[in-house]
């Protein structure tokens, strides 16, 4: 993984040329979380819902024009209520409805930007899972820098376990060299206009094999740079993760 050098980014930012948006994806219905009825992003870690921790991390960064939170339609009201409860300054935060898939949800955020502020050639969206509240300032900052410089980037950590591929789900078909394997985290950050154009250019079959937005770039042969993630930038998916998140926060004294 490379480090981004000092570039014209800060000057551009000062001139206000680049519009950067935070896009928080809270579309999951929480079916993997055991008995709980609430989607996992609404569960408490420490004293606040997970999604609030995530929004706060984005809020602290002044360069986000807006922080767009996307969730299932039945949870829009609840999301707005908890934001009202925990976040005093809501001037930059909007909650809108997500789409049927992760990528449709991202497209909704781009549509929102188009309709409200207009989509510029260099508008950047930093897309992030609402259930990764331990993202750091450095990761967010480097995502913005890389996307500004290269058009797209993805946050990853080197794989520690050996990755085994099985195409028939019965036997190993290959064992790729671990030193080329990474585990994908978020944020994934894109030039919004380019992402939209690429997505609209996909066939329905291509859309079906998409697991995330970075793959849109990969399918179309576009470059995506790697941003170094953090082992602790965990995705709270299972009850076990919630226990881990709670114990990470026990350091509060």
């Amino acid at each position, binding site marked *: 993984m490379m*480090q981004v050098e000092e570039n014209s980014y800060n000057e551009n930012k000062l001139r206000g040329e680049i519009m950067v948006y935070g896009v928080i994806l809270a579309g999951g219905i929480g079916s993997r979380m055991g008995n709980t009825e609430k989607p996992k992003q609404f569960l408490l870690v*420490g*004293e*606040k819902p997970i999604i609030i*921790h995530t929004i*706060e*991390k984005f*809020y*602290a*960064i*002044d360069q986000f024009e807006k922080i767009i939170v996307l969730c299932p339609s039945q949870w829009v009201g609840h999301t707005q209520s908890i934001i009202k409860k925990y*976040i*005093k*300054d809501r001037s930059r935060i909007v909650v809108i409805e997500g789409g049927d898939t992760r990528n449709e949800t991202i497209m909704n955020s781009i549509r929102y930007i188009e309709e409200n502020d207009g989509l510029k050639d260099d508008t950047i969206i930093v897309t992030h899972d609402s259930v990764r*509240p*331990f993202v*750091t*300032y*450095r990761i967010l900052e480097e995502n913005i820098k890389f996307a500004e410089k290269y058009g797209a980037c993805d946050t990853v950590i080197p794989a520690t376990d050996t990755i085994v591929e099985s195409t028939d789900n019965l036997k190993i078909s290959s064992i790729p060299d671990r030193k080329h394997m990474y585990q994908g985290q978020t944020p994934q950050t894109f030039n919004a206009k380019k992402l939209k154009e690429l997505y609209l250019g996909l066939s329905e079959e291509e859309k079906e094999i998409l697991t995330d937005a970075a793959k849109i770039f990969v399918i179309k042969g576009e470059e995506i740079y790697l941003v*170094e993630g953090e082992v*602790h930038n965990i995705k709270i998916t299972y009850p076990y993760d919630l226990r881990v998140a709670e114990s*990470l*926060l*026990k*350091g*509060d*004294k």
Partner: protein
Amino acid sequence: MLNTVYRLVAPRRIEIAFTDIDLFGEDVIVRPTHLSVCNADQRYFQGTRDPEVLAKKLPMALIHEGIGEVICDPTNTFKPGDSVVMIPNTPVESDEFIAENYLRSSKFRASGYDGFLQEFVAIKPDRLVSLPDDINKYVASFTEIVSVSVHAISRFERFSHARRDKIGVWGDGNLGFITSLFLKTMFPDSEVYVFGIDEEKLNYFSFADKCYVTTKIPKDLELDHAFECVGGNGSQIAINQIIDYIKPEGTISILGVSEYPVPINTRMVLEKGLRIFGSSRSGREDFVKTVELYKSHPEIVEYLESLVGFKKEVRNVADISIAFEEDIKKAFGKTIMKWVK
């Protein structure tokens, strides 16, 4: 907001912890950018403090010398992007006679509670002083230790008699360098003599009027006042040498920290009617004064550049350890971490 804190949990072992800081309270949220390692941090890192002290104070984030950039400020005192120096002393009361850094109730960063080795520092607006945009950030990072000298010199101005023709500074380390440099700046009419043990190090003190190796001090040399910036095992020799060379009614300022009680020649202190005073740490007033001096005397910042020793960009916990290990090896100057974690 969740905040990553890098705490020393045992000597040479730093672990990650998270705290939840209030974005809408009374604290300014600062992103540290340049952090400077102090000997006090080293004593924790290497575990050379008393085991009882270590047990009581750890786990704790180290570093009390540092600067940063304002991220957000609910108090509207600063703007996002403002460059600031952070004041580690944190008073909880004020007193007409006792300065904030001597109040026993004051808390101090990286001594009992978390220092600046964090993703963000939540800090009261009066614990921040704005820095000029064009200042050398590596120099600015150790403003805290500079303010300690400025504090001691300001007190010296209050306590000492007005004949200040010749002032001696014992110690050829960082504190001796800073103290003699600021004496030269704050008392331009005084001659400043520096006393050390290492001729190579004394060569850095080009602004001083004279430098002496402590084994070769002329017998007839006399000083009006003196500063001790030695500390540790050398404190005893330095203080007693000062007592020998200082004129009657002179003032001795003690700045060096020693883990053990130091025997001094009190007979001669009495005979000469000497005044001895101690100084430790600094407060807001001293930081403001230091930054003002940076602005009014830009040459000070240039001289201080020679203290910028090892620079280490810190992207992970291992980098923090590298910075500390390299800092142990160096004889002179400061180790500075450029914080990109």
